[in-house]
């Protein structure tokens, strides 16, 4: 080896953080959210009212809580379609506990533990048996809700204790509901975990290349298992909130929530193929979905027509950056 030249210096980054922030996904979502907020304020005189705005948050807090965990799961390259069914099963178990005379703390514990258990069951099937999660959770989706139907049949559980109502109906301060506070706290926790810890970094690595991650000493199976458990846990928490809000349990509770949660996550800029996404995006997407549904609700637009807007929003928001890049002259 003769004359080795001095090593070439490689800079940390090329682009300025500011300019990349301006052209980021989150910036796009902020613009969309502000626009919808403005449109809503013009379209309905009832919109800009503290009570209305407070009621609005109920449209997304429960789904949003699940969306955080789902975001991590999707970033890692997996998916969970059984979240709504977990809600149903957890709620049914809480109902059974009420029949047996359980008090509020026990109820909350049961909701959370059942959610966690269901998540662990999904996680085991996926990580231990190496099955594709989309398929497994289509199966457990029927299984979990099916068990709720077996237990409850055409009956309903009610008679939840008075104090239990706080979780889904209570306010922490003025119009700030307990659900909203929980949502915001969870947002911060999940943001920290995903973007500021090595656990979060490993989640990204798994989503981009699970094999290389495994070779790099990432315990892929364990992390995915934890993520399924987390998603189950959040579904359990959501189950507590919804059950408390409805004050009763039926096996058909939360039907169809799974697709709304996934829509929220994808709208938030999480790549459905795994490997990319941010919690801030999910938070913004949750607000946007709440704003759209509530704003259109004020105009008495039927829910199904709202879903057209959500569907369009989803496609347009995802397509926009692609079209934009094309126009600015890629290939």
């Amino acid at each position, binding site marked *: 080896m003769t004359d080795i030249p001095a090593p070439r210096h490689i800079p940390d980054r090329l682009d300025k953080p500011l300019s990349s922030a301006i052209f980021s996904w989150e910036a796009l979502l902020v613009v969309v959210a502000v626009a919808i907020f403005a449109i809503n304020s013009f379209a309905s005189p009832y919109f800009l009212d503290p009570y*209305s705005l407070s009621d609005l948050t109920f449209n997304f807090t429960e789904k949003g809580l699940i969306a955080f965990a789902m975001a991590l799961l999707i970033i890692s390259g997996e998916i969970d379609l059984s979240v709504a069914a977990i809600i149903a099963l957890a709620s049914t178990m809480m109902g059974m506990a009420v029949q047996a005379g359980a008090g509020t703390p026990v109820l909350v514990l049961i909701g959370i533990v059942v959610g966690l258990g269901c998540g662990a069951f999904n996680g085991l099937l996926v990580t231990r048996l190496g099955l594709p999660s989309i398929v497994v959770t289509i199966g457990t989706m029927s299984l979990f809700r099916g068990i709720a139907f077996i237990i409850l049949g055409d009956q309903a559980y009610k008679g939840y204790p008075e104090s239990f109502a706080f979780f889904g109906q209570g306010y922490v301060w003025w119009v700030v509901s307990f659900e909203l506070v929980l949502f915001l706290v969870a947002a911060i926790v999940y943001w920290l975990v995903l973007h500021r810890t090595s656990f979060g970094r490993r989640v990204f690595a798994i989503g981009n290349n699970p094999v290389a991650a495994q070779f790099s000493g990432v315990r892929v199976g364990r992390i995915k298992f934890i993520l399924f458990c987390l998603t189950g846990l959040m579904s359990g928490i959501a189950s507590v909130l*919804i059950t408390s809000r*409805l004050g009763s349990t039926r096996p*058909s*509770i939360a039907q169809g929530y799974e697709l709304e949660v996934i829509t929220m996550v994808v709208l938030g800029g999480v790549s459905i193929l795994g490997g990319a996404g941010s919690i801030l995006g999910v938070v913004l997407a949750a607000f946007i979905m709440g704003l759209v549904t509530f704003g259109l*609700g004020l105009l008495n637009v039927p*829910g*199904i027509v709202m879903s057209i807007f959500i569907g369009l929003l989803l496609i347009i928001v995802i397509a926009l950056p692609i079209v934009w890049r094309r126009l600015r002259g890629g290939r």
Partner: protein
Amino acid sequence: ENVKIALVVKSLGNGFFDAANKGAEEAAKELGDVDIIYTGPTKATAEAQIEVVNSLIAQKVNAIAISANDADALVPVLKKAMERGITVISWDSGVAKEGRQLHLNPSDTGLIGETIIKLAADYLPEGGDVAILSASSTATNQNAWIDAAKKILPEKFPKIKLVATVYGDDDSAKSTDEAKGLLKSYPNLKAIIAPTTVGVVAAAQVVTDEKLIGKVNVTGLALPSEFKKFIDNGASQAVALWNPIDLGYSAVYLAHDLAVKKEEAKPGATLSIGRVGKVTLDDTNSAAMAPPFQFDKSNIEKFSKIY
């Protein structure tokens, strides 16, 4: 400013509720100062109905008249509505007592239960096996009717044997599967009773397809305009229903009475409902309207043009 009364239905698009809306508009015209907001979810779930109610609260409507997808789950949000000064009544499919000021039953629950069995029994002088194809297993009103029917069966119709109750979820595909299953499992089945407008059509179509007209009689609750065909082809001898137009009309009248005239809803109170007459509240603040009306070959033609 006009009085805003929201007519919240289980799901949009259902012919029964569209007819009720006609009645509601008629009442609004008579009352003069009323705007009707006809709304509801597309999917018959409690959660979706709660979002609808929330947006009505935000719009500060004067009254909500709701046909509920779930008797209990809607209670908290309706309570909130009442706290914010909104009059809440339920009609058709009720809400638990603490979630509304009064409930308007289309007809007496026991009477409906009896009627659906009687519709089958009338054409089975020898007696025989019958089965019930219901809507979703969580539907409040259907469950109440079925219970009433079961209660009355041994004393009034001893020769009729109820062999099964299945649920079609008000989904035509599922109702069809269930109806087929009934015919296969019970070869001696003489009648299918479907106390739901979706299920009854599905069952009648299955009986027609399986060429069992004359062997199995389909009956239950049906909208004449949707069901005429099966009376005509003989798959069904007769069905019953109350008048949804009158129901919507009365619901709006009652909501108006409570919201504007500040009438009080308490047990024993008698309230007037325009051209339909008067109702008296029982001790659960419920009132029942007319008995179910029967449709057969003689009158279906006429009523199918109305609702």
